[in-house]
């Protein structure tokens, strides 16, 4: 009964909310093209600092950020500071989880996994690892990047956990990866500050748009992010699994 009232209440509010929000945003029709005063035009044409009208795949060189994936260029270059914060958020929640659970090192009692899973895991684990690595090394060229790549690496470890009830990750080593990746990210930023005058400035030549070795610090950072995210999520997962279950 109570839930019905809440339902009616929320429905009524939804109507109000949709009416209200329709003043600010058109709910049913979409633009045909990007509006000219949006900042995104600058990102797409890579002409925020340089006077450049068009970027051509595999031709344009020395663009202000050489990433073919524009979203990546925003994440890791134009708004890289956000990403540093984002990584920190993940870092912080990993720390939070580990602080909450403490490191008992003991495994929760788990069911023994089946033969198929155990066998398949051994095959799939390296594939996942490789795919994850591929995702973050090609983040500046193709969809993907550090975050999905890292998540995939973490997934591969989760798979190991599922497959082997005795599997334990060396949390200390994971932490080392986590910490040093983060430190390196900041150090890259500071190097940018020292050499280019801006924190996180792209101080490496950006190369040709579309090449693997291009776009300056972007792949570098994405690799770091990939490692860091992978390490963090793995650490979160293993914390959950290692936490002693008190009956």
């Amino acid at each position, binding site marked *: 009964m109570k839930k019905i009232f809440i339902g009616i209440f929320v429905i009524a509010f939804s109507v109000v909310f949709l009416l209200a929000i329709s003043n600010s945003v058109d709910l049913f029709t979409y633009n045909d093209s990007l509006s000219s005063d949006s*900042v995104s035009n600058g990102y797409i044409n890579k002409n925020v600092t340089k006077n450049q009208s068009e970027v051509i795949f595999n031709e344009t060189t020395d663009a202000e950020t050489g990433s073919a994936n524009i979203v990546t260029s925003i994440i890791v270059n134009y708004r890289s500071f956000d990403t540093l914060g984002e990584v920190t958020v993940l870092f912080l929640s990993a720390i939070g989880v580990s602080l909450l659970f403490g490191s008992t090192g003991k495994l929760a009692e788990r069911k023994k996994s089946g033969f198929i899973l155990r066998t398949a895991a051994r095959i799939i684990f390296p594939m996942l690892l490789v795919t994850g690595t591929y995702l973050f090394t090609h983040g500046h060229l193709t969809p993907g990047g550090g975050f999905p790549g890292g998540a995939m690496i973490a997934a591969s470890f989760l798979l190991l956990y599922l497959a082997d009830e005795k599997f334990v990750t060396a949390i200390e080593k994971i932490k080392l990866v*986590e910490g040093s990746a983060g430190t390196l990210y900041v150090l890259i930023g500071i190097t940018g500050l020292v050499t280019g005058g801006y924190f996180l400035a792209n101080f490496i030549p950006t190369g040709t748009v579309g090449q693997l070795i291009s776009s300056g610090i972007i792949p570098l950072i994405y690799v770091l992010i990939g490692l860091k995210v992978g390490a963090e999520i793995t650490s979160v997962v293993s914390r959950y699994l290692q936490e002693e279950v008190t009956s």
Partner: protein
Amino acid sequence: MNNPVLLIVIPLLLAFLSVIIKKAGKWLLLVGLLFNTALAFFITTGETIIGGFAPPYGINLVVDQFTLVGVILINTLMLITIVVSFDLVGKYSIVLLTALAGINGMLLTGDLFNLFVFMEITVIAAYILSAQAKKYHHTITYLVIGSVGSVLYLLGIILLYNLTGSLNMADVAAKLPLLTTKELLVPVLLIFIGIGVEVKLMPVSGWVKGVYSNANRLIAPLFASVIAGTALFVFGKLFVSVLPVSDTLTLLMLIMSVMTFVFGEFAAFNQKRVKNILLYSSIGQAGLVTALFISGLVYAAVILLISNVISKLIMFTIAGAFTEKYETDDYESLNGVFVHNKFTGIAFTIAALSMAGIPLLIGFYAKLNILIGFFQAQNYVLPAIILLMAIVEGAYIIKLLLALWAPGKEGQVSEKSFAVEKKQLLSVKNTIICLIVALVIIAGGVLIDITEKVVTDGQPLLGDQSPSFTISQSKGGE
């Protein structure tokens, strides 16, 4: 090397490093705090671009006088809080370092989405810290409400992005006059509620009681003065310089702020526990500060904010010590606790009196500025409310002080023998720190010309045009 970005980056770097060098965590925290506090004093006003991309495209840090005050104040307060309760830091040094980075990011950033990110960093750190009390259900409440707040804030800024095509604060502010009030209603409201959760505005401050009242000597002042102060500075920046909306919306926001102020003070009057009194009083004061920001009295708001966070720092530290030593903070069971801790008591009293607005303390200077500002704006209702609340405020503060200073039952002459068992509340070092902070409260209220110079540096804060009280004014006819 006085680049403000270092305020954010160095703590982060140290946080990452302390994962590797585990044992050095506490000392790295101290290094980070000292570095930040020292650097904060050397920051100059101006704009810092990050990544080399000019503002509407890249992220920038904006340091104006308002932010500068915030940065110096908040970093110093955080240093003091942590130095005072350094023994309680324990494993939380990384969290505190990231919180330090997040707080500085919130204060400095000139980008709406970046603000969201740093706000999340700060808030998540706050969630983790609040769990130190082991009262996980309060933390969950905080987490749920906080997450809803950030979701709403995010929705708000994305709507603003849709309307203006930008996320940069200055850029958005420049494009706002082209928009109608109707269009702005929802985004501004969403941002208001989103920030309101952190600022502790009344209907959305449900989490505050559970979290603050169970916090210890380290966490309570950290929340009540450092994080709350940061949230208020951000509120001021957003609603004075970025989203200066007008008309009905302002009126409604003002009503909500004043409601928070009145109800907060009333609720504080109703409390028996020291921390509860303080937390409701800080809710009330936050309401007053937001009301001042919305009314455009920036200078008065900043002074009130400063006086309030400094007072709360001392008082929450000592209130935390109460629970630590006596396992209660009900002021009636702490009868005469200051008999044994006179200097701690003096620091507490000065802070409390400043909160009650007694003359020659900074709280009174704040009150004067508020009154002068409102009267100048021909607003007579709010000063009346503020003064009536000052009576309520004074009433609960005097009740608290009397209980803590003067042991004894009604009808009996107050004597030492009636006081609670003798325990040392704060160590000598901490007492001295508290007294020094209390001295700042006095100095800020007496040397008002210097206070004004330090706070404004001769420029109006965020274009504030309201008058402030100066020494020459009292001379009137001369």
